[in-house]
């Protein structure tokens, strides 16, 4: 479908829309039109924007804007929808939770950082910061004086009521009413899973309402490892921002950094050499294998199979050794740079990869013998935590978890980057949608990654491994979004630049945030053990959620 026709349809649907840019197609819509337009964008046959990829709040100075990046899973086209309010005292925008479920946590994040209240959002609590935090950090006039927000000496009180702002429209008169939604009643048996808990794989806190062994409701509390990376990037030069991406999802370090580098390179119009593309693709796939091996280990451990943990780590170690040899780091590699990579790969790498590609398949067979085939393991996985296709798309659950629900969402196939368009591999898709499906997708993806490595390793072209860049990198004015297929889903970088050497706004679309938003629907009605299995199968990484 041509971009032009999208423009025509959108303008037909919404005459008040103001086209800001053609590439990518961007429209600005006044906020009060959003509740009407959003469902139409999703339901229109020709548009079918059913996937809210990324939702970013931006302080434009005059106005507080929200940027929705929409994509159609059916047609594959994208558009950007912008809206904003000039009221900086009481900014209010309509919520799109009803249309795209992934907006739930994203709008809470925008509220947290920009103070925009979303009308008709059922749960307007802060997502990352403490409830008593003063100010909204991503506003440009935010007062970062430590005296305003001193280091708290007392624990945060848990608030069990969530504010909600409901709009009542009577003619031209809009009346905003503040309501309170009860998260957990006083009589409920609420157990904290986390923030310090072996099964949350980091400092994430689930508040779980239990009825005996049965989970009735899960409330996700994030922010325990929030470092304000998006805020920090606003005062760092572009090369400096690179170091922070490795620390988001530390198991997708190469891929995250790849996304940011690609985004900056695209904005600069910088072309990297084929050698760099090959190296980056190889590193991405090694990272994916390492991450999936770690998934297997920790997931088995969550289900009580303790021996499996060591098997997975034993094999992951071999990949970390390769990283160490080429990049110098084992977990946080800091390898990709704008225009290339830090240093050339080790001459030993190709040999090591070839050995590894031969070594791993028999090991995978052993994994399947030890764990996958076990009757207890199967009963723990099959039919548990079923995520259907529509819920996966609406919640934006990408990556292996989305593909287990039958959603073909592999960025490597949809928007090839690196050298993924030159290699043969299958996008692993299953239709079970349960824990078993998510598990098997990851196990099969390891084989596909090995296939990619096998094709690439002998064909790395000669060339320079670092393109020449200016000493001070300034991006032209504009906004860019680039995404890669990280180990646990689509990792995207949205940069808004005003032509300076610092980004005006840099937003990371983390694959982890949508993953935890589906924990509640998946775990409800199951047992405590199922909650652990669901959490393990989603394979979230907490620093990626909190950023």
């Amino acid at each position, binding site marked *: 479908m041509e971009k032009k026709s999208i423009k025509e349809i959108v303008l037909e649907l919404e005459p008040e829309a103001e086209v800001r840019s053609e590439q990518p197609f961007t429209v600005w819509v006044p906020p009060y039109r959003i509740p009407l337009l959003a469902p139409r964008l999703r339901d229109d046959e020709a548009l079918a924007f059913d996937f809210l990829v990324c939702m970013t709040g931006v302080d434009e100075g005059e106005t507080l804007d929200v940027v929705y990046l929409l994509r159609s899973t059916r047609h594959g086209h994208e558009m950007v929808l912008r809206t904003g309010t000039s009221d900086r005292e009481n900014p209010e925008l309509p919520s799109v939770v009803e249309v795209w479920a992934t907006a739930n946590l994203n709008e809470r994040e925008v509220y947290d950082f920009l103070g925009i209240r979303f009308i008709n959002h059922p749960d307007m609590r802060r997502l990352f910061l403490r409830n008593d935090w003063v100010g909204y950090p991503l506003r440009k006039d935010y007062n970062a004086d430590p005296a305003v927000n001193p280091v708290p000496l007392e624990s945060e009180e848990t608030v069990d009521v969530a504010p909600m702002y409901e709009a009542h429209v009577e003619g031209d008169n809009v009346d905003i009413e503040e309501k309170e939604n009860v998260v957990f009643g006083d009589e409920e048996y609420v157990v904290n899973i986390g923030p310090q808990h072996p*099964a949350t794989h980091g400092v994430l806190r689930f508040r779980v309402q*239990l009825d005996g*062994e049965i989970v009735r409701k899960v409330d996700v509390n994030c922010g325990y490892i929030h470092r304000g990376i998006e805020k920090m990037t606003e005062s760092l030069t572009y090369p400096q921002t690179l170091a922070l991406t490795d620390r988001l999802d530390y198991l997708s370090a190469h891929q995250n950094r790849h996304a940011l580098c690609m985004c900056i390179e695209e904005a600069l119009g910088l072309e990297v050499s084929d050698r760099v593309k090959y190296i980056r693709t190889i590193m991405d796939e090694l990272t994916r294998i390492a991450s999936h091996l770690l998934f297997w280990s920790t997931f088995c451990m969550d*289900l009580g199979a*303790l*021996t499996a943990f060591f*098997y997975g780590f034993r094999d992951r170690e071999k990949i970390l050794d390769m990283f160490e040899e080429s990049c110098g780091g084992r977990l946080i590699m800091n390898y990709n740079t704008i225009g290339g990579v830090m240093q050339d790969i080790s001459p030993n790498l190709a040999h090591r990869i070839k050995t590894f590609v031969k070594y791993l398949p028999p090991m995978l067979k052993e994994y399947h013998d030890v764990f996958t085939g076990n009757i*207890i393991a199967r009963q723990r996985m099959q039919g548990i935590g079923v995520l259907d296709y529509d819920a996966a798309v609406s919640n934006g659950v990408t990556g292996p978890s989305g593909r287990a629900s039958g959603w073909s969402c592999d960025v490597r196939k949809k928007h090839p980057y690196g050298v993924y368009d030159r290699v043969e591999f299958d996008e692993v898709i299953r239709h079970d949608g349960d824990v078993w499906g998510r598990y098997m997708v990851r196990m099969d993806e390891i084989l596909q990654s090995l296939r990619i490595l096998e094709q690439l390793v002998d064909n790395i072209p000669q060339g320079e491994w670092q393109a020449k860049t200016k000493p001070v990198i300034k991006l032209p004015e504009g906004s860019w979004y680039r995404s890669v297929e990280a180990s646990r889903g689509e990792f995207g970088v949205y940069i808004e630049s005003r032509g300076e050497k610092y980004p005006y706004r840099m937003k990371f679309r983390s694959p982890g945030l949508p993953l935890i938003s589906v924990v509640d629907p998946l775990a409800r009605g199951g047992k405590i*053990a199922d909650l652990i299995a669901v959490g393990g199968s989603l394979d979230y990484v907490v620093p990626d959620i909190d950023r």
Partner: protein
Amino acid sequence: MFDFSVVTEWVDEGLRSWLPEGWVLPVEFFLIGLCLLVAYAIIALVLILYERKVCAAFQCRLGPNRVGPWGVTQSVADMLKMLTKELIKINHVDRFLFNLAPFIVIISSVLAFGCIPFAKGLEIIDFNVGVFFLLAVSSIGIVGVLLAGWSSNNKYSLIGAMRSGAQMISYELSIGLTILTMVVFSGSMQLSTIVESQAEGWFIFRAHVPAVIAFVIYLIAGTAETNRGPFDLPEADSELTAGYHTEYSGMHFGFFYLAEYLNMFVVASVAATLFLGGWMPLHIPGWDAFNAAMDWIPSIFWFIGKVAVLIFVIMWFKWTFPRLRIDQLLRLEWKYLLPINLLNLLLMVVVVVFGLHF
């Protein structure tokens, strides 16, 4: 074969000649209690090391190998550490029950430990309803677990204790029924008699099919009874952190830890006694030379060997299988093990009545 009653009678006579009449029994009680506790502690330490080594072997590791040759004194060092650790006082717990719980657990396990016939003439508690007594005292432990979970004032502990209650009461049935099956076969509830009557062949061979079924069920139920993987739901570390003993520290935690290992030992010993002849060497009727050769190996080694093999099997379960979910656990017991067990008991009665055994 060496008979340990020679030693015990020698000590008894010696004491009687040295001490006044009224003192002999109390001193003997004291000595026996002391020996029992020392054996208890030593066996627990050995088991902990054994488990760590077995687990390491399964996980492609070496296990403890720094403290002493092959790490043999590692668990001694661990015990000293545990003994010197502080018992942390926790607010809002029911202090009396909280402190009582580990003692109930350990007392139950020591009492059960005392019933075991270790070797020829080395039985401490041995009377005509020995099996019944063993079952009764080993079930007291669950009271301690429930109390620990309840008094800790911790939600994880409570869930762990509830799971433990459901699990142990359920699997107690299977244990009881398998033991009953073997009691039907042996015709006695006295442990020493049961062992003696296996001189012509271990029960698992003589009572063939029903005994093998009972043995397998006993091993499953016994693993569940000791809260070990894959039935370690009460302390499922990835779900409930540590279950019912989350809040315990120092030696109170140590008691739970010791009791867990000793319960495993007790379960393996009972299995060895009922099915594999206890300390009785392997005898095949008619092969007199072979039997004499077997008799040459001291009975205590037979017993320890059998128990070690069984414990290895139980550890094998733990380090291989993933954990069950609570409903699967209860379904396994009530829908599969219990009916099979009842039918098996019937089968055993038929076998005994019609004399279909060897």
